[in-house]
């Protein structure tokens, strides 16, 4: 069992590091992990789950607002983008946040095509992150089920 645990732990470590290196996560995600402990072992997963629900809701709002061809209320789109930017920042979803920054600029410039492109990208991006994190949480689960502890990964 120890060999399995060790292997899983190494996989987990490598995978986590890659998520940071590829820019999916930033140090705010690390901060969230600090808030997790034995008493609240699923804190990070739960917060991220709420975040992804937020993504669905806000992206829906943006899509609806952009759908009003010719009479798009860019302030309305921008308001949702701002919210998404905030929550992505709070959970360390670095790429999503980065996209929101550009998206916001397109809203301010009332650039329809730019906004539509960003909307598509942000949709892809949050789903990609969701999948990656699911894989990461699964690795954690496997480690625990194999009787091991999830290692603390030092990003730096």
């Amino acid at each position, binding site marked *: 069992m120890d060999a399995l645990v060790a292997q899983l732990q190494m996989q987990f470590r490598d995978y986590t590091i890659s998520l940071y290196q590829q820019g999916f996560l930033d140090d*705010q995600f690390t901060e969230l992990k600090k*808030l997790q402990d034995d008493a609240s072992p699923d804190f990070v997963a739960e917060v991220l789950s709420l975040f992804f629900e937020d993504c669905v809701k806000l992206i829906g709002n943006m899509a609806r607002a952009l759908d009003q061809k010719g009479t798009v209320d860019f302030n309305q789109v921008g308001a949702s983008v701002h919210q998404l930017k*905030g929550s992505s920042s*709070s959970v360390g979803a670095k790429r999503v946040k980065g996209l929101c920054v550009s998206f916001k600029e397109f809203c301010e410039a009332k650039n329809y095509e730019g906004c539509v492109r960003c909307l598509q990208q942000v949709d892809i991006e949050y789903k990609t992150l969701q999948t990656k994190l699911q894989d990461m949480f699964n690795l954690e689960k496997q480690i625990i089920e194999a009787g091991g502890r999830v290692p603390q990964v030092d990003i730096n």
Partner: protein
Amino acid sequence: MPRDGGVSCLRRSEMIGIGIGELESPPLDSDQVHVLAVDDSLVDRIVIERLLRITSCKVTAVDSGWRALEFLGLDDDKASVEFDESTSFREVPVVIMSSENVLTRIDRCLEEGAEDFLLKPVKLADVKRLRNYLTRDVKVADGNKSKLPENLSNFSYPAPITPLPPPSTTAMESLDTNSRPLPPVDFVSSSPPSPIEYDDSLTTSPESLTSPVDSPMRRLEMRSPGLD
């Protein structure tokens, strides 16, 4: 900073039973800080709630300035009559949170009486630092009780600063909202309480921006500008 090991452990065991999303925590100890956190983002509310609980605060989280006033019992006409310059509400520290690192805005908040300003995303070190000077506030300020929960700290909404309950309470306001303006309660712009010194060693990376020379309030060390 824990007052003593035993007390901290007690806090911990109180926190263990609290799940995510619950808005109320166990009864307050007399020297415990109660924080009212206001943010329209659920994700941010959950995170700040956890940050505060981990640093031994009792937390009530609400999603708007209106609800904050409601919670404080300041949401009707009667409240404005009772609230005036002499109330101990004005002693309550207000801390603003925002993702926007706009100096003029930050300064304005501080000039209007905000105790401190936290740049989002808020980190554990930020809250720990806050917690330290809140504790000092508790000790310094007189235990002036009111009908509201003791040591209530408010994290409320953008300027105008919400009038707040008894001393050693704190308000944290999240500015990134599109909420309606607060009702025309007669807000007093509280004169800044005596600047509280904080221990620099408690802060995180000291990337400071230039402070306005005359700002009477302690300036939070800002993280790198242009976060956006």
